[in-house]
């Protein structure tokens, strides 16, 4: 019966191909061209200064400007944007039963339409944020509030999902259960957008849980033993993270009476010591999602074992949601109102400052351990997973700097936001490259590959572009965000405690390490000798290259025109928060990225990185083995989980029958106890 269905599907596919050859490729190319046009259009429009009001067409009554004003005042856009992928998912699954080509085309188109709708929110967002509520849902009502921070991240997710959808068509040829994959991918998209556009913690929590559960299906997709274990790890830790956030939310609501993202530092200051528990709960909850040490153990298991499109999304956006949650809390709940403070040293910044110290060091440890472990990996996707942990460490450090510096935290904020966007692009590109290599060679171990640039030249070039981005080469986007983060940590020890000098030192060492392990990645996979068995693998696949090329273009474009994002999005976003306007004016506006000190700093990092790589391969530093007990996963988490289950089982076995057999005795005992307590009272 299944074979019959497969045959019917293939027949249908062939029928479609006869009618309209290569419908998918044509569709994708068309989508890509329109996408490029939109990006250019938005770029030009905002530079000339058309953003902010309705499109300034000459005749205010014309049809186009009527559409323009309708779009710029249509408030329910967030709801539609979220519903479109969530409802589109089942539709794709149903169509997928008939024909896989139609389904993939529908996937790309749905994602693209969602992306266009996100872009259409621009006028309203620029005017001061788009708010929309659905009262009565979930008792509190759903609140959506799209400000510039949410908006830029939503655009990033949209772009990423679009390219991953184009990529997934070719990649998923080799996988089973494709309909299920696309269904849950769409629902995850809806969940991600919901989390980003949420206006209060409650709405964010709803979509956060939806996102966790739907991405679980993507992680456990292969249903192999490894996938199931990784999936179990992912979902149980995810549930614990969700419960942690729930507890934090309850505390916040009980103490302050509101869950919205408004400045609450003055109320928090009145609480006393419970606020540190609340902060800790939020940090744990969002940190689990982000992959912060020591809560990161699910990440190296889940990201490699998922199919590559899912890994790209997991590493590209889903872990950023955790960082976004932390950032949101930092800039709203722990930030005082602009009218209430007198400057940098106002005591209302204290909570933010203490929080910041903790988060900066968490970020530093994360980035260091991530980079160190990445150096040790021999499997492509595992290396990229640990690299994600390391880069999230950068982002978390940036959040910490924002919190720590309080009034002067604008530089940290800018760096964090920029790095979130940049990392989304280059990390998903890297995962896509790894996916192409795996697709063609079916091999994940780097040391068994080599010389693939001859067979996959375009992929190798795109990989090089992504690596240039992530190590921070000037003229690529990573350079911008790393400089900003570096400025941030330097300010931390200039304006704050001197111990952050060590933090800055570790920052630079980790950058060196990043150069080293990416050199290892590139050289082992693409350069060198091509092994015998790979001499006849297939070449480039068009659509995958299109997707990867799109991301690479973005990496180069942002690298060359860094001020576009800064001036159009990041600085206005920072201005809306309680940051020192003079500071922003002096240090952020028209910041000089390509200064001599920055570029020379980068130069030395590259030199040391290359030296580290040579030393590592020479002295076999990259294959260290560890003691089992240092592995947190085996040493701490697994025993805890097994402990819970085995204690329950033992308890049940020992006591269940005894309790059931002594029923009447228990009744009389309880009766006596209650009477005793009650009568003792009188």
């Amino acid at each position, binding site marked *: 019966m299944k074979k019959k269905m497969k045959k019917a599907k293939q027949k249908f596919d062939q029928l479609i191909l006869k009618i309209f050859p290569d419908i998918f490729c044509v569709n994708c190319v068309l989508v890509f061209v329109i996408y490029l046009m939109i990006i250019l259009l938005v770029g030009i429009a905002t530079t000339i200064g058309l953003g902010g009001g309705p499109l300034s067409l000459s005749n205010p009554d014309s049809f186009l400007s009527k559409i323009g004003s309708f779009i710029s005042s249509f408030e329910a856009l967030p709801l539609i944007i979220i519903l479109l992928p969530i409802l589109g998912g089942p539709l794709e699954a149903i169509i997928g039963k008939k024909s896989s080509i139609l389904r993939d085309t529908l996937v790309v188109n749905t994602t693209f339409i969602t992306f266009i709708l996100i872009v259409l929110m621009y006028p309203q967002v620029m005017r001061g944020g788009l708010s929309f509520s659905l009262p009565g849902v*979930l008792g509190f009502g759903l609140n959506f509030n799209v400000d510039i921070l949410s908006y830029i991240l939503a655009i990033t997710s949209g772009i990423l999902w679009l390219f991953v959808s184009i990529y997934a068509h070719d990649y998923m040829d080799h996988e089973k259960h494709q309909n299920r994959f696309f269904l849950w991918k769409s629902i995850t998209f809806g969940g991600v957008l919901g989390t980003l556009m949420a206006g209060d913690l409650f709405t964010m929590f709803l979509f956060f849980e*939806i996102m966790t559960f739907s991405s679980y299906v993507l992680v456990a997709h292969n249903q192999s033993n490894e996938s199931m274990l990784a999936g179990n790890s992912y979902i*149980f830790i995810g*549930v*614990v993270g969700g*419960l942690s956030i729930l507890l934090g939310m309850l505390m916040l609501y009980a103490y302050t009476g509101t869950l919205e993202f408004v400045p609450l530092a003055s109320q928090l200051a009145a609480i006393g010591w419970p606020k540190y528990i609340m902060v800790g709960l939020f940090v744990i909850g969002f940190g689990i999602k982000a992959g912060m040490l020591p809560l990161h153990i699910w990440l190296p298991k889940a990201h490699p074992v998922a199919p590559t499109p899912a890994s790209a999304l997991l590493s590209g956006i889903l872990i950023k949601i955790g960082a976004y949650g932390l950032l949101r809390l930092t800039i709203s709940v722990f930030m005082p109102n602009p009218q209430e403070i007198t400057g940098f040293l106002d005591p209302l910044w204290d909570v933010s400052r203490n929080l910041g110290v903790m988060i900066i060091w968490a970020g530093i440890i994360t980035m260091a351990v991530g980079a160190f472990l990445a150096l040790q990996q021999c499997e492509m996707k595992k290396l990229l997973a640990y690299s994600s942990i390391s880069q999230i460490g950068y982002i978390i450090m940036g959040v910490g700097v924002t919190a720590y510096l309080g009034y002067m935290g604008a530089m940290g904020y800018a760096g964090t936001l920029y790095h979130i966007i940049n990392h989304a692009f280059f990390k998903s590109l890297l995962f896509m490259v790894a996916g192409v290599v795996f697709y063609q060679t079916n091999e994940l171990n780097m040391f068994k590959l080599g010389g693939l640039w001859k067979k996959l030249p375009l992929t190798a070039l795109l990989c090089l572009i992504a690596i240039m981005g992530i190590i921070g080469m000037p003229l690529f986007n990573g350079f911008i965000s790393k400089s900003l983060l570096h400025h941030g940590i330097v300010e931390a020890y200039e304006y704050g405690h001197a111990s952050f000098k060590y933090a800055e030192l570790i920052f630079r060492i980790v950058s060196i390490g990043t150069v080293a392990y990416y050199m290892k990645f590139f050289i082992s996979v693409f350069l060198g000798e091509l092994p015998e068995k790979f001499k006849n693998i297939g070449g480039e696949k068009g659509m995958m290259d299109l997707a990867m090329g799109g991301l690479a273009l973005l990496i180069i474009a942002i690298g060359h025109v860094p001020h576009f994002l800064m001036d159009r999005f990041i600085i206005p976003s920072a201005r809306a928060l309680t940051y020192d306007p003079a500071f922003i004016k002096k240090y952020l506006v028209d910041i000089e990225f390509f200064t001599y000190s920055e570029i020379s700093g980068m130069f030395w990092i590259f030199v040391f990185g290359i030296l580290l790589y040579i030393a590592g391969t020479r002295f076999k530093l990259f294959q260290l083995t560890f003691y089992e007990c240092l592995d947190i996963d085996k040493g701490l988490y697994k025993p805890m989980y097994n402990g819970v289950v085995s204690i329950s089982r033992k308890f049940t076995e020992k006591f269940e029958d005894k309790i059931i057999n*002594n029923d009447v005795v228990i009744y009389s005992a*309880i*009766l006596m106890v209650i009477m005793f307590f009650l009568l003792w009272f009188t």
Partner: protein
Amino acid sequence: MISNHLPVYILILLLISAVTTPAIKPSSKKFRPKLVGTLTIASLLALTMFIVVWTNGPFYYNFGNWDSVIGIEFFVDEYTSLFVLAVLLISLLIIIFSLEDILHDIPKEKTPHYYTLMLLMVFSMLGMIMTNDLFNLYVFMEILSLTSCGVISIKRNKANIMASFKYLMLGTIGSVSILLGIAMLYMVTGHLNMGATSQTISSVWQMYPRNILISLSFILTGLGLKAAIFPLHVWLPDAHSAAPTPSSAILSGIVIKIYAFSMIKILFRVIGIDIIKAISINEYLTYFAVISIVMGSVFAIGQKDIKRLLAYSSVSQIGYVFLGIGIATEMGLVAGMYHIIAHAMMKSTLFLSAGAVIYRTGIRKVNEFDGLGYELPLTLGAFSIAALGMIGIPGVNGFMSKWYLGLAAFEIGKPIFIIFILISSFLNAVYFLPIVISAFLKESNRREQIMIRDDIPFTMKAPLVVLGAACIVTGLFPNIIVNVIQRALPTFMTFVF
């Protein structure tokens, strides 16, 4: 005018239908429509009653127009009528499910007896919900006890008869305990009517405090035993796992809640919140509740049979209701009463889908659920929705109960309760998630033998879909229920006769 008699109409309709059911042959065409029709008409009457109460306010109904001090009185407020409606609707869905399902547990000639017992059970439950008289409560409680034993032991199986016997014995101990408590209250207050008792209770409390305290301890222990609070829950696992599925669903989903609601009525309407806070009985309730919440889940993790696992899960969930009662503030009562209805929906869904699995495949062990998601996608889908609700995922109604309980716990300044609620959420995940995951994501070696998908009968599919959808709808729009509770709260916090 007519609307005043609505409570009686509902009860008489059920009673007559129960008594006349054995007269119709089960193989005749009129059997099923009669059953379903009765409950549907009863539900419509309940809906009318709810609308009447919502627009006009609560009302008293005196049987035979006797004065409330002498005669039997019903007091119908907004929450009571909503609860009556919910009980009727859920029972309707469970009985629709049972039309096909019961045939593989008992022979066809016995089905009229089964439905008589079920209808009498619903009759007594509605009586217990609406009554405002203590002895009347006891009478209906006895009917409920006997008929619930009946629906368990109707399956002529050694395990069933043992379980039913144990339930009967313990149930009798519980009932007699409650009767003794009621008698002692009558002894000092001279009234059986809840309203009259509550008027005299404050003066009686000055004169005979010990009497009231002893009577309270008897009543609470008895009600705790019947509502299955740990460690008085001992009859529940055997009874609910051995019984035929529709019986388990109605017992676990609704019957134990009725006792919890009776506890609310007695504690808040008869004794009154001032005395409760003075003797801090609500604190003791919360301790038992917390123990129940955690231990129920601990025992559930150790179970291998799906129905026993669900039974222990009920013990844990009743703990939530008792926690809400024990917190004894407005928010606490809202949480407890919301959870009564929410859990009724979730637990019925879980039991019905487990029953559908057993009906179709005979699989009862939790570790044999591999790959069932492909055979029975609708069934396991409903199971997953209810399971997610039990874990506490927003969007399903279980989450809202935890949220309200959390807020209530913070209100009285005891955040430790929330820690326990969240631990229990995690434990729920430990035993529910593996079932859901293995059903949908593991391959089973049965798949080659499967020809058609989801071939459980329509009468079994429809209730699952409706209940699953109801869980999500009340989860997304909890205000449907919460508004009703908040309208009815004043009658609990300060009962004015």
